[in-house]
């Protein structure tokens, strides 16, 4: 079924190549993608519900005598549901949003291909098909990143992305090569049985961390996310941030949990620390940016960090032979994967709407949009509250389960884990608190206050398709938060297949009880009802008791009339205290104020310089090194044919010598 969907995506892609110029092509392509995605979603859900059996299909494609293996199991069904669900809503949103596309032929053909690539990665059941689909997905998304290639900085974003993507695929290639072993068994089913030395396991884990981590945006391989994700059209940004990073998480879970079957506790500790670092560094960078789409891309790094904390915790519990706790941590990670797909798509859709309405991506060019775009404002507010992990929304539910898993860590046997997991918990709490500040800033500066530019004052609400997609996602955020038990029940089968000996399903939809009633309970629906009733009661009492008189007047101007909208707190000033506290040390934030001399008519200027430690510490030295080596080798370009032949000869002798010594 899902393979049929892939085929339809590819056909749509081919059609789009031919008809992209036509006005109706947009509706056909996006409408077709939405319907196809819906069919894929239904088939994934029916597998998760246990009504359709999975299976393995082998097609005579790809490598001769091996063929292309595809399989559906509970893990791929869960991620298929996320990919296809994201595809449905992004396509629905794009039916309206794509109307304003200036060059649809740069987007339409690649969009269905991108969806097909992500679906194929999740379905692939042998290394060759997996890598081919992975590269296909990367290239299709790269083409979408380059859709507006004439915009300044986009070409560089595309360049960094393609380098990182190729590097990631290369690392995965090495990982699968080691998994396949000397007899070259490419199918996942035979890799599971393979017997490897511990150092081989460690190398495989390292390569998968590099390959999947670079796609997911794990620190320090996150530098391309804030460049590439915002460059694409907003519905593609939503897919890249909300769904493609999840495909990378899938690759990690598939290899480490399924094919390797767990790791040692040292590796789990490394993953935990990387997750914690990603969570904090991601949200700090999100706080520093003023570009609304860059903020969202950086916050993806944060959420991927949270997911990896859950995965690392699960591996740690697995190595300590505590399957029930390992299952709890893995459920938290997968639950957060689901939640992040929901609210990050919602936020990118909202950002697209705002960018379209105001014509700017800079927060400091917005303001007061809550009056002009009321529906978008409500949806985005729900998304902001959900990603800030506030109860009773879904972001809180998954972080709560994760914190419960962290609290079980003292039962682990290793001291290294015992002592460091609470510190990772501290990083998690810090990132949640900073995310709250980050999204207050995003919503407050863009939607509240007074408009800062004439365009913002004239902004208009977006079309119904976009609003429908956003409203659906906002509703899903509330439902998943109020009934977290329902989602965890859906994840349960996947978790049980990955971790042998996990707990039986709870069968509770109203409240979450991770371990026992004495330890901790959380009922999203009760909290939701309590808050509703309490606010209703207070509002009703206030109406009965209090005076209902209301007078509109000008805001208090502190005695300085002529209050310009620029006097408001902006994106930069809001974050100044946090920048001084955290940014100075971690991001090397430097503020410089330039005051013109008295009598000089130049405006005073204020500048903030930020440096990404990963970019400065790793990527720039590497790129400098590569450039240096390339310049040294440059002389080899201008030799005579005699010298070239001499080089070939010397190299041949060298290789023969190596061969002679080897044998």
């Amino acid at each position, binding site marked *: 079924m899902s393979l049929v969907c892939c085929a339809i995506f590819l056909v749509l892609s081919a059609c789009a190549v031919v008809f992209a110029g036509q006005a109706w092509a947009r509706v056909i392509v996006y409408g077709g993608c939405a319907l196809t995605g819906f069919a894929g979603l239904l088939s994934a859900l029916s597998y998760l519900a246990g009504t359709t059996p999975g299976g393995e299909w082998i097609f005579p494609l790809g490598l001769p005598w091996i063929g292309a293996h595809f399989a559906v199991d509970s893990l791929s069904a869960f991620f298929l549901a996320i990919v296809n669900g994201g595809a449905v809503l992004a396509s629905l949103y794009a039916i309206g949003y794509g109307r304003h596309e200036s060059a649809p032929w740069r987007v339409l053909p690649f969009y269905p291909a991108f969806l097909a690539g992500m679906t194929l990665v999740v379905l692939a059941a042998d290394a060759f098909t997996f890598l081919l689909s992975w590269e296909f997905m990367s290239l299709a998304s790269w083409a979408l990143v380059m859709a507006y290639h004439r915009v300044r900085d986009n070409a560089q974003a595309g360049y960094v992305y393609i380098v990182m993507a190729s590097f990631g695929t290369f690392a995965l290639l090495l990982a699968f090569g080691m998994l396949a072993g000397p007899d070259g068994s490419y199918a996942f089913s035979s890799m599971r049985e393979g017997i490897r030395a511990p150092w081989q396991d460690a190398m495989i884990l390292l390569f998968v961390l590099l390959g999947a981590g670079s796609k997911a945006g794990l620190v320090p391989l996150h530098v391309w996310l804030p460049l590439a994700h915002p460059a694409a059209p907003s519905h593609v940004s939503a897919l890249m941030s909300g769904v493609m990073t999840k495909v990378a998480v899938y690759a990690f879970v598939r290899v480490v949990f399924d094919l390797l079957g767990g790791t040692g506790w040292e590796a789990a500790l490394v993953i935990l620390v990387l997750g914690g670092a990603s969570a904090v560094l991601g949200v700090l960078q999100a706080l520093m940016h003023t570009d609304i789409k860059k903020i969202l891309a950086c916050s993806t790094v944060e959420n991927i960090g949270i997911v990896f904390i859950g995965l690392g915790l699960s591996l740690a519990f697995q190595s300590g032979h505590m399957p029930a706790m390992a299952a709890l941590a893995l459920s938290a990670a997968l639950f957060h994967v689901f939640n992040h797909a929901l609210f990050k798509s919602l936020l990118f859709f909202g950002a697209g709407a705002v960018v379209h309405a105001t014509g700017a991506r800079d927060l400091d060019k917005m303001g007061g949009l809550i009056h002009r775009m009321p529906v978008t404002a409500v949806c985005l507010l729900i998304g902001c509250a959900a990603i800030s992990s*506030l109860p009773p929304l879904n972001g809180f539910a998954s972080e709560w389960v994760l914190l419960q898993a962290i609290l079980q860590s003292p039962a682990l046997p290793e001291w290294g884990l015992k002592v460091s997991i*609470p510190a990772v918990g501290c990083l998690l709490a810090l990132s949640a608190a900073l995310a709250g*500040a980050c999204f207050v800033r995003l919503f407050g500066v863009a939607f509240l206050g007074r408009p800062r530019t004439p365009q913002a004052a004239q902004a208009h609400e977006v079309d119904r398709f976009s609003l429908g997609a956003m409203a659906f996602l906002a509703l899903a955020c509330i439902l998943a938060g109020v009934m977290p038990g329902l989602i965890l029940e859906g994840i349960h089968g996947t978790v049980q297949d990955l971790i042998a000996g996990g707990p039986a399903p709870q069968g509770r939809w109203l409240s979450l009880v991770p371990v026992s009633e004495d330890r901790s309970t*959380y009922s999203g629906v009760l909290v939701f009802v309590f808050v509703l009733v309490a606010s209703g009661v207070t*509002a009703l009492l206030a109406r009965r008791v209090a005076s209902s008189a209301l007078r509109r007047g000008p805001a208090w101007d502190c005695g300085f009339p002529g209050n310009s909208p620029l006097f408001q707190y902006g994106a930069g000033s809001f974050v100044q205290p946090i920048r001084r506290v955290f940014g100075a040390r971690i991001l090397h934030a430097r503020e410089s104020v330039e005051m013109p001399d008295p009598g000089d008519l130049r405006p005073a200027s204020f500048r903030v310089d930020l440096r990404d430690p990963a970019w400065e510490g790793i990527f720039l030295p590497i790129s400098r090194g590569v450039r240096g080596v390339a310049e040294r080798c440059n002389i080899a370009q201008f030799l005579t044919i005699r010298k070239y032949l001499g080089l070939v000869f010397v190299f041949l002798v060298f290789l023969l010598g190596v061969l002679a010594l080897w044998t």
Partner: protein
Amino acid sequence: MDVTLGTITLQAIQSAAVLGLAPLLVGFVRKIKAQILRRQGASVFQPWRDLVRLLRKEVVLAENASWLFRAAPYLILALTWVSASLIPVFATNLPFSGAGDLIVIVALLASARFVLTLAGMDIGTSFGGIGSSREAMIGAMAEPAMMMVIFTLALIAGSTQISHMAEIMASSQIGLRVSIGLALVALMMVALAENARIPVDNPSTHLELTMVHEAMVLEYSGRHLAMIELAAALKLLLYVSLISCLFTPWGLADAQTEGWMAFLAGGMFWIVKLLGAGVALAVFETSIAKMRVFRVPDFLGAALMLGLLATLLLFVSRGL
């Protein structure tokens, strides 16, 4: 946990009691502070009188205020009220307590802060912005510190369910531990910051350079301001009750098994603890000066480190 008419009544009594007593606690602290400064001081009932007067006044709303600005006071009060209802103040195992644990209580307060900081930015004046910006910084430091305190206590008690934690802390199996002391100090520092008390913020100031909480709510008036003030008073009561139920859990009755006399005694104990905390807060506030805004991160960073130290010491220390 049984939900009977009796326990529901108890829960209703608690929810009403926290709301009714919160302004009295604020009034009591003010009275004691005035007494220490050799002033007569206003009556303990003055905050309630202020609230009633505010309710009777008309609301003056800025021209560009949105629906969020008008809905925020009710939402903030509701979120604070729900979290205050989850804390066992005089009886444990009340019917609401299963709805959420200590982490949920803290997260509900974070939600209230989220709404309040947004409301501060709605009018678009510098005052609201400066308040929201500083509140966001304080929250970003205070919440992780609070979480570390929760970690410490949860690891000691083996639970985050607050009724259960209080029962374990009350039992003799815990004993005195260094970690509990460190966690208590950290929690008190967080409580001072969260409630905008000296030395982090001054609840009675109107000087723009020192304001945090008052700057955010500057544009509020009438019934909206009444809701905000009531929520602020409720938050103070909530933190005092939280500290007392975790660190001095004496006299708490069990709602499932015990009778009315125990509840009455629990109520008396609670009021005595509130009075004690009120006196302590007043003495502390009169004996210390407010610190600069950019010293607050050091203060809260110390709380965070104390919390982290408390957690780590759990693994190496032994109970006495």
